[in-house]
């Protein structure tokens, strides 16, 4: 049970219960603002009946031709609100928006070690499309899986035929 609404700047002062999570990136202010300024419809937050923030999803749409797609930049749910299907609701919202924007697919990157998240995404219909070498830099250098889910416009599911070879980060178009 949730109130799903657009993320506002005030939420930046209240999202600690979500962002203290070690696997949730605590980005610089500008990063969130960039999304709010360009893709506000892709930035949604879920609020609990007690008025606390439960989780949020932040994303964008980009690409040309058959690469026109929605991208999930971050999706995170606070520990007290897990296993309630909230991530699904947030992702559904983003997928619906992408579908209405006539995107071909939605994609996201995830640490290859983050088994839990990968299994959640798989349950939501995402497949491992390819491996991106050394996608994550910094303290914990790691490869990423690029996971994808086809939307209704990609009737032939062309966007979700997995690549067998891993790609380097400089080979990524997006």
């Amino acid at each position, binding site marked *: 049970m949730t109130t799903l609404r657009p993320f506002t700047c005030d939420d930046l002062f209240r999202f600690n219960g979500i962002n203290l999570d070690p696997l949730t990136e605590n980005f610089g202010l500008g990063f969130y603002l960039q999304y709010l300024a*360009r893709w506000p*419809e892709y930035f949604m937050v879920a609020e609990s009946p007690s008025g606390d923030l439960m989780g949020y999803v932040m994303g964008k749409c980009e690409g040309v031709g058959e690469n026109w797609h929605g991208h999930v930049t971050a999706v995170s749910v606070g520990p007290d609100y897990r296993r309630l299907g909230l991530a699904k609701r947030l992702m559904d919202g983003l997928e*619906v928006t992408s579908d209405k924007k006539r995107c071909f697919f939605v994609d996201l990157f995830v640490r290859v070690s983050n088994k839990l998240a990968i299994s959640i995404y798989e349950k939501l219909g995402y497949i491992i499309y390819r491996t991106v070498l050394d996608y994550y830099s910094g303290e914990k250098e790691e490869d990423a899986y690029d996971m994808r889910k086809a939307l209704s416009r990609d009737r032939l599911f062309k966007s979700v035929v997995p690549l067998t070879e891993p790609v380097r980060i400089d080979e990524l178009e997006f």
Partner: protein
Amino acid sequence: MARSQNDTISERRLRPIYDWLDNGNNKKALQEAEKVLKKQPNFQCCRALKGLALLRLGKEDEALKILDGILTECPVDEGALNAMTLSYRELKMPEKICTLYENATKHEPENEEFLSHLFMSYVRLGNLKKQQTTAMSLYKVKMKNPYYFWSVMSIVLQAVEGDEKLGQAVTLPLAQKMVEKMEKEGKMEQEQETIIYLLILELRNNWKGALDLLNGPLGKKLENSASYHLICLNKRIELEGKLENWSEVARLSRNMLLQQPDSWDIINNYIQAVIKLQEADSTNGGEAKEEGPYSMKLNKVDRSVEEAESLMTCLSAGFPGLRGPFLAKLEICYRTLEGRSSLLQDLIMEYIDLFGGKPVCFSDIKKYLKVIPVEERNNFILRLRSRYPDTTSVPSNTAQIYREICLSGIERFLGQHLNLSTERVDSMVSGLCDRYVASQPLVQHIVTTELRPSDGYLILAGQLLWERWIATKEKRFFLQACSMLQIGLIGSPSNWQLMLLLVRFLGRAGAGQLCDSVCGPLDIKNMMLDTLSWVLTRPLAATGYVDKLHRIYCQMTRFYLHSPKETTEHIIQAYKHGNLSQICDMSKLKRRLQTTYLVPNVYTEKILIDLNFLAKSLDEMIEDAEFANLKPIDWKSLADNRDFRTIQSFEPEETSVPDEMIATNFQLEQAFVRVRRATLSALVTCLKLGGHTEPSGGGDKGAREQALKDLKESEEALSTWLDKSKSLLGEEKVLDMPQAPYRSEMNSLVDGEHLAGVLHCVKLVQTIMLTATQEKPGVSGADFEPLMKVLDNLKAATATTTSPDWTVVCDLLESNKHAVESFSFFTIFTFSILSLLRTGKGMKKGKKAVLGAKFSHLEPAYKDLTANIQDLGAALHQQLQAIYKTL
């Protein structure tokens, strides 16, 4: 043709300079620019790039000279304009970018790009009026909708940020008229244009107009869009509610609930509407109720609580597992509570049956637990416990763990943990710890980045131990809690609730350095610096870990310096991308970040650390004082962005943190900033005096007058806020709990007479200055006495320490830190006093100062003062050594 050939040649020559600049090799860029300028000395763009390179090499003065030179030439060359915009931005001179493009647009008034840059340069300055007119000029040049709406948005912002009356009477009507014109002419294109229209109508409280817009063709178009579908549906219900069309609210929200029964805002709207309808019907005699089973068809209007309850029953049957409909029943009962308390309790139990195994359960029902009458609470808990008898010693799955923690949390919330005996706490804590240990096999497999469900046992035990520790002052409770939380963190190293609780324990016992290491994994950065850094900075400050504190303060200062600018750049992006509705929100964010009280607080404390602890010589101190930027603060608009909600608590009302407590604490925090700022300002003035003025009242008259004015202001602020703080401290309700704000630092500052000492110093310096210029009758030894008394008291206070219990170590360390600071302050003041009293120019090292003729009678008093300060220093040194031995 010739011209374009020249251009190409010029471009080719500039290319390497751009490349070097892009690669960060500014030296090479400068050399290359100079080479080109040898051939074309007037090449504007190249000169601008030279300016940029110089600036990036740290030669700001030289750069500025070049840039300002070009500015007076009113450049229109695109490359030069870009390089200069970049340079002035890096130099933090946004107003010059305006001049740059004002000049350019004068030359080429129809140049769309120049006008657009001019508009953005006004956005950087926040000059809304000029934004408005520039956007209109743009629209006249190119009839593009975005320009028109940039202008509309600039008007709306004037209303939002300016005087409310003027906004309602003039600006908003103007904005509305402008949009209506576009609507009438059929020129509305983008979804955001309709959103702005809606925003204007709402700002004017024109709910009917807003609703008509939403139901009209523009609204329908919006509703069908990818981005605004949900917003439209919600907005329609909200507006119908504002217009008190309750049957419409009930119908619309019910329609939505049939598809999304878990939407809490919609449930709330629905319940409110149904209750309003029932109330209206009961006064009007009511409408006939439908007979038969509850119908789930669309567009039905429920007019009674009974129907609402039936809807929720049907929804929960249709969507099993969803919390929404069940919680809605609780909400309905809560809102119509009279005579239904036992039903509410039954519903709570039913809710726990269904959802107690989820960690969210407690926060869901908290609101409803609160209204269980005090006299029924015991019975409620007994019933609850008999439902889940506490006999199985080992939970068999994670749901059971969550349920047990939820039940214990409910007990705590309903006051069962208040006034417990030590024996009872011991047995409860050991029970919780046993549970924790027993549940480990169930949680062993959980990865370290996840939080373990069983950690909740430790949180509850930790809270119980905290209370016992504070009440009995027995060390063992503290030690038990810390070891328990540490053990918890070994298994569950990402659990920030365990970390935050442990930090509060350690901070309370004055273990500043340990707080820092526990907080490490929290990685407090970016926005969290504003909301959560208080958890760590206070114990560090109290215990004098100035190095670490200084690093955090530097980090915070950078954050506060850059964030508003960064926000402005994204406001510009929002204009460019046409997401106008985000602009109000971002402007609000910018204000909130600029007005947080931590901005003056952190800056003041940082400079005080520089002066007191980090400066290695008097010269360094004077240099720090010269660079201190003490611009006036708008005290009335300070905001408190600290987050007190993140630390988990199951607290009953008696020990929960009410908003008023946070408000009082905030007042004290502000008072603290005020007195510290006044202290710093006085110190800066005195250091400048000591470092620069001629002896015995000579020197620059203007500077002396300014110094006197500044000292007077500091004195007034200190005495006013010392008094106010005393009365605020009298009202301060201190809740000694881990989830509450720390006790204000004002306490130890006022208790120890530190402020009184500073105040006496400030007065003394002024008296001496006025004597020097004979504006006041002679200063005498008696003028030193109040300060001497404070020194005596501070010295006496150092002697009183015995082996402290651990609950007061933090306060003890804090008052010692203040004493050390005061010692340092007095030394600085004495330095400036000596500089005023002595004769001869300049203070030469190793040379004995001789007092001027006017002041020779003060020699004994001055000597006493310095001796007394030295004694204080020695006494403090001794005491600190003694304290560290006992700890």
